[in-house]
């Protein structure tokens, strides 16, 4: 029979100040950790949607992203020669989507327009909807090819001002071409949901451009993307091609570096929390020397005593964890869970929301358990190794 949970609980309550301070240490560390995990998961969730390996993103050789790529129309026309590009079953057209990328500065809703962010504007043809399969209209209508109209990604519509259906956005290189928002589209939460889409020819005109930024291709089923990439990068075409997942994993390098930095700082903080717990538990063991000896005498094994102290420590960490998670949630409610982060790919901002998810709670729980158990291990072993006779004699 193990020691009852009530026993540990009582002990924690009997040393109120120490328990409270240790709980607060753990809660501060767990709070920061939960926030960071939420942030990382939200970003990762958005990028994980971009997993279509039969979609190729073709950019200029030497360019590092769509934002700094410029493809002249002759280069684009050479892509038609690729044999493995899918064709539309109904019309027989090849699924090749030339696209142009630019940006517009819009006020952020979350701080009532005190700051602005650059939002990507993508010029597309109707072909884009067949190449980017995840993009679909959720409200309103598609832009009319003859009218200055745009559709807006759901994430962008939530976070930036003036993007409701019916409102007008000033586009063009001089910011004097009014475009009306006629629809909202979803991209299953992927990065494109932070963009504004309009008709390619109309936007090329508004921005005085003749070049495309990128060309997106849909490959036929069963084709090895690498063969097509080799062909695109070969001597006949000389452009650079990426599958969608490869493109995004390369684009998120900077984000990953920041998350690594934040992660290592939190690891250091966790170590401090482990030391604080160890301190508390050592003191607890020292204060209960005779009691432990009693427990051993009445038949509890050293292993049970060890387990008991680990349980007590984990219990302590759990209270801290709950408090920390609650703190992180309160912070998100206070400051808002809507974030946007600069992305090199479009040289604009990527909007996302930090939402609590089972995975996020799971990560925090594992962290709490680890901190609690690691902090207790050394003191608990000391308790278990206690020399019973000496301890009983000691008053």
């Amino acid at each position, binding site marked *: 029979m193990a020691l009852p949970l009530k026993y540990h609980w009582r002990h924690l309550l009997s040393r109120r*100040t*120490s328990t409270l*301070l*240790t709980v*607060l*240490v753990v809660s*501060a*560390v767990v*709070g*920061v950790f939960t926030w960071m995990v939420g942030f990382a998961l939200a970003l990762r969730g958005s990028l994980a949607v971009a997993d279509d390996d039969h979609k190729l993103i073709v950019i*200029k*050789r*030497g*360019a*590092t*992203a769509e*934002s*700094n790529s*410029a493809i002249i129309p002759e280069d684009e026309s050479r892509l038609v020669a690729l044999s493995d590009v899918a064709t539309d079953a109904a019309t027989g057209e090849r699924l090749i989507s030339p696209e142009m990328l*630019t*940006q*517009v*500065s819009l006020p952020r809703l979350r701080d009532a327009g005190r700051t602005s962010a*650059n939002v990507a504007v993508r010029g597309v043809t109707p072909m884009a909807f067949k190449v980017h399969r995840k993009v679909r209209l959720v409200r309103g209508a598609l832009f009319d090819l003859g009218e200055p109209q745009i559709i807006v990604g759901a994430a962008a519509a939530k976070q930036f001002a003036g993007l409701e259906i019916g409102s007008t956005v000033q586009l063009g*290189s*001089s*910011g004097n071409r009014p475009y009306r928002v006629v629809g909202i589209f979803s991209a299953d939460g992927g990065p494109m949901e932070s963009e504004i889409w309009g008709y390619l020819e109309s936007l090329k005109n508004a921005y005085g*451009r*003749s*070049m495309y930024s990128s060309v997106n291709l849909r490959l036929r089923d069963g084709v090895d993307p690498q063969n097509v990439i080799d062909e695109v990068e070969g001597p006949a075409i000389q452009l650079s091609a990426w599958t969608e997942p490869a493109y995004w994993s390369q684009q998120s390098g*900077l*984000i990953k*570096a*920041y998350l690594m930095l*934040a992660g290592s*700082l939190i690891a*250091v*903080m966790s*170590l*401090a*929390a482990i*030391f*604080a717990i*160890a*301190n*508390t538990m*050592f*003191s607890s063991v020292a204060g209960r020397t005779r009691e432990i000896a009693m427990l051993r005498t009445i038949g509890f094994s050293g292993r049970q005593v060890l387990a008991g102290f680990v349980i007590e420590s984990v219990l302590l960490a759990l209270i801290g964890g709950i408090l920390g998670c609650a703190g992180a949630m309160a912070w998100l409610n206070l400051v808002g869970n809507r974030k946007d*982060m*600069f992305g090199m790919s479009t*040289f604009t*901002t990527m909007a996302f929301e930090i939402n609590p998810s089972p995975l996020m709670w799971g990560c925090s729980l594992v962290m709490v358990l680890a901190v609690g158990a690691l902090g207790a291990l050394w003191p608990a072993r000391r308790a278990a190794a206690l020399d019973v006779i000496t301890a009983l004699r000691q008053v």
Partner: protein
Amino acid sequence: MNLRLIYLYHNLSRNKLRTALTAAAVALPLMIYVLSTAVVRGIEAYLDNSVKQLRLAVQHKGSLIYYLPAGYRARIRALDPEGNRLLSICGLRWIGGQVPGQRRPLSALAADHETFPQTFPDYEMTPEQLHQWMTDRQAIIVGRDTAAHFGWKVGDRITIRPSLPPYSLMEFHVVSTADKATDTLTLFFRMDYLQEELKKYPELEGRVGFYFIKCATGADLKEFREKIDAEFAGSLDETRTVDEKTFMNEFISQQFNLPRTLTILSGITVLVAMLAAANTMGMNFRDRLNELASLKAIGFGSGFSVFLIQLESLAICALGGLAGAAAPYVAFTFTPLKNFSIPVIQTLNIEPRVCVEALIVAAAIGATAGAWPAWMAAKLKVVHALRALE
């Protein structure tokens, strides 16, 4: 030796493990404090240099990514033809760039070569370097940290592939590694070389990314910031003129509001250290209740107990503070980590000043952690305390 110091030593060594764990729990957060503060200060120093340079940045009103006409150079000059107030105007154009076969992104900018030296005097070129810059069309100035990373020296020939048009490989000759400049990463080369290579892109040729203008005084800077925008108001390419600090700050905070995130993080981390130290002092107080009461009973005043507790708390935190400040200082000054660079911003330099500040923070943590036990000790009723324990 002073009685109090002997007492302090015995108090610290009475529970060595506890003292060590607490010092470590203070040292680790202070390490984070030192690192975060160093990064934030690095960014601030960078921005402060921008303020001192009295430069205006003229960019396209729509976005930094749109180009401005080359003719704006002359029109801005016409606002102050004598050049007494707008000392020099330098057109710039960003091409990013990568060394073929290397992942590390570069930040290379084409600059008008005639006006670059006067607009960026902080680059302190020697007469010889200046001569090379003026006469060699393929001249390039490489920030010293970038140069160190690739092992480039003055006189080397280097190849860079621009990440923007023209995209084709460009060859340069390193004329300076900018040993005095605040910016240690950026590369500057000549605009005429870029424009030559851009002939294949008639749409982009001749255009300029943004203009940097060196002003004579702070008043000129303020005045022309508005005059320049007024000059181009209503044109097809309207401008947005800001001082260099604002320009850089927008660029840095756009990446990821790093200064703000780090400030919050280091605040929380100091709190963690404070709680951990307070916990220890609380436990020490509890364990020594009996002893503190005895001290009072034999005639030592409350002041003595308060002094003992505060001294111990300060000593533990000073131990932690020293370790927490010294570890990053040593690591980033004497080990290979000294070449560590934060993406886009700067090399991480840990200045002794930040370490001294960390010690002050450690002292504050110590004083706070000891406050409550000290107060309890001062209030201690001897009779109750002696009765309470055994």
